[in-house]
């Protein structure tokens, strides 16, 4: 199993490698949000070349919904990746897979829609579609990760392992719309990780809210951690994504180090243990009404 970290700039790569990261996730400008920084296609090609010589895997994340206006840029991106393909293209939208086929890149695509990938027949469906892998829905618990990974045969299974869960993604400018009503400069709402929502009957439970050019996201109040789960299931999983949005650099690095070296987990909990879902508690996303 590989530990996947998001890079804010290339200078972090060496440090994250030393802490135990296997894969470096970067995001291309114009086709991604939810990230501290994005990179040009040329820069990404340069990162890929450097990983080839220095070691490490390079993934490119396209984590936004693709609309018609985005398709020409997607085409340009895929063309630009052909000379030195990244180790994976992590896609939120199936348009990426559909166009990647035309460039012989479909076996590099990891489909990561945040929700949706939830059962063994979904896995069989995507295995036949010829992708590299899928990321399981964030609503599944570690036992379900393992059960599904065991039947994946040939399709890589990855999970969202660490950070605030992305609960809600709207194309609407929800934050700037509200700030405009309040007479606050709307730029204050864009790519600003300071904003939180507090529901009126849940004082103290604050949900991070983030807006960028691709829309508005709301995140879980508490963070997921998967130290024990990854230790148990590392042989079944291909990638574990560690997200850094709303985390300090120190917390992110301590988490990465603790995933890579379990002896450091106690130090992580000592220094950064607040704001996480209780250890061993079920993921609060399993109850449904499907069978009344």
């Amino acid at each position, binding site marked *: 199993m590989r530990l996947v970290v998001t890079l804010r700039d290339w200078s972090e790569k060496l440090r994250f490698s030393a802490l135990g990261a296997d894969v470096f996730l970067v995001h291309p400008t114009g086709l991604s949000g939810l990230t501290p920084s994005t990179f040009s296609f040329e820069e990404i090609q340069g990162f890929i070349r450097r990983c080839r010589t220095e070691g490490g895997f390079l993934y490119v994340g396209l984590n936004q919904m693709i609309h018609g206006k985005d398709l020409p840029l997607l085409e340009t991106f895929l063309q630009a990746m052909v000379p030195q393909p990244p180790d994976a293209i992590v896609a939120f939208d199936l348009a990426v897979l559909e166009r990647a086929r035309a460039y012989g890149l479909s076996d590099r695509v990891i489909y990561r829609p945040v929700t949706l990938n939830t*059962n063994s027949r*979904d896995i069989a469906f995507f295995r036949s579609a010829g992708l590299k892998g899928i990321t399981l829905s964030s609503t599944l618990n570690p036992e379900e990760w393992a059960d599904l990974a065991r039947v994946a045969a040939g399709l890589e299974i990855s999970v969202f392992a660490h950070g605030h869960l992305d609960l809600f993604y709207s*194309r609407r400018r929800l934050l700037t719309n509200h700030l405009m009503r309040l007479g606050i400069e709307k730029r204050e709402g864009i790519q600003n990780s300071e904003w939180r929502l507090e529901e009126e009957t849940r004082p103290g439970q604050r949900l991070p809210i983030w807006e960028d050019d691709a829309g508005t996201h709301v995140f879980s109040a508490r963070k997921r951690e998967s130290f024990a789960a990854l230790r148990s299931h590392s042989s079944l999983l291909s990638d574990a994504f560690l997200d850094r949005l709303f985390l300090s650099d120190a917390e992110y690095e301590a988490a990465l180090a603790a995933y890579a070296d379990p002896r450091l987990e106690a130090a992580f909990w000592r220094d950064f243990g607040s704001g996480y879902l209780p250890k061993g508690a079920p993921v609060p996303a399993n109850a449904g009404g*499907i069978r009344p």
Partner: protein
Amino acid sequence: MRRPELLAPAGDLERLRIALRYGADAVYLGGQPYSLRSRTAVFPLDSIREGVLYAHSLGKKVYVTVNAVFREEDLLGLRDYLDSLDDIGIDGVIVTAPAAVAEASTHPRMSFHLSTQQSVTNLETVRFWAKTGIRRIVLARELDLGEIAEIVAQSPIECEVFIHGGMCSSYSGRCTLSNEMTGRDANRGGCAHSCRWTYSLVRGEDPLLGAPAFSLGAKDLQAVRFIPALCAMGVASLKIEGRMKSPHYVATVVSVYRRLIDDVMAGRLLALDTYDSLLARGENRPTGPGFFEGIPGPEQQLSDPGAPKPSQSFVAIVEGYDPSLGMATVSQRNVFSIGDLLEHFSPAGELRQFRLIDLRDAEGMAIERASHPQEMLRMSVPWPVEPLDMFRKVN
């Protein structure tokens, strides 16, 4: 110009009949398992069979939603359930999960439609799904008219577009806010509509003191002014949301869009305000153009959850009529009284008003006020009426 299908919600058999009588070409309904309205508004197989017989007798169609995002335990019985729907002779299923899409090849008699829960927003994603046996895509509600036209013009399969009703604020199928807030799985029929709750905005550790709370929710969609363009671009189906809505809402909304589509196709379009005002008689929430004109601004948000909502006075639905007495048998739905000015509303679209002068209970005793929900009553009406006609109070 291709005539689009008008597709309406059916929360139960009564609303199925109303939707079809008031002008829908097809209805969609939720089966008992696997639907996103699993707590209410669901049909057991016997009711689906009854609904299909009724619809087919009118030359109309029934689609069944199987649009939950399945967990592993949900797969058990899925194929048997689809077999049962196939045996009943439904016209199509609306699916979300690839696990269900994969069943299309084994059920060729049924048309498989991809739910808006997959949030398809571009032509390339349409092309991906078109190769899987899907025959119709319900496009994401986040598309503007230009984006819809571009997809429809080049899509290898039919496209369906929402034209009226509730809007998810999030891209559908990508939201688990309800899971976080209540433990109810939004994508398996448990959505608690947490986006419509009241929130405060906090920056860092500091609440914005004095700032009004707000909701993430969106106004309902109302697409009257966009119907001519949607017809012209060749959209296969125009869909109304609202399996949980009242019979009066279904009747009002369906009848207005029926008339509007027919008028567009016949080249006799009235001023759009005419349709707007008719539609307003059935609305129970504020409405707007959704994404049809582009990304919505602040005015399209339900920014103030405490703001007054439109209210309607649907009072009774007709069960029968005795022409010798000039009396209708009705089922009461809201309080009304002798002396009230009532409006008669029928599938023919005619609106006529009268003052109520005679109201009787089931035993024929004269009463002043109808105050018991679902009570069967008789009332004088100055002209013949038909079953499923409705009365609303004129304020």
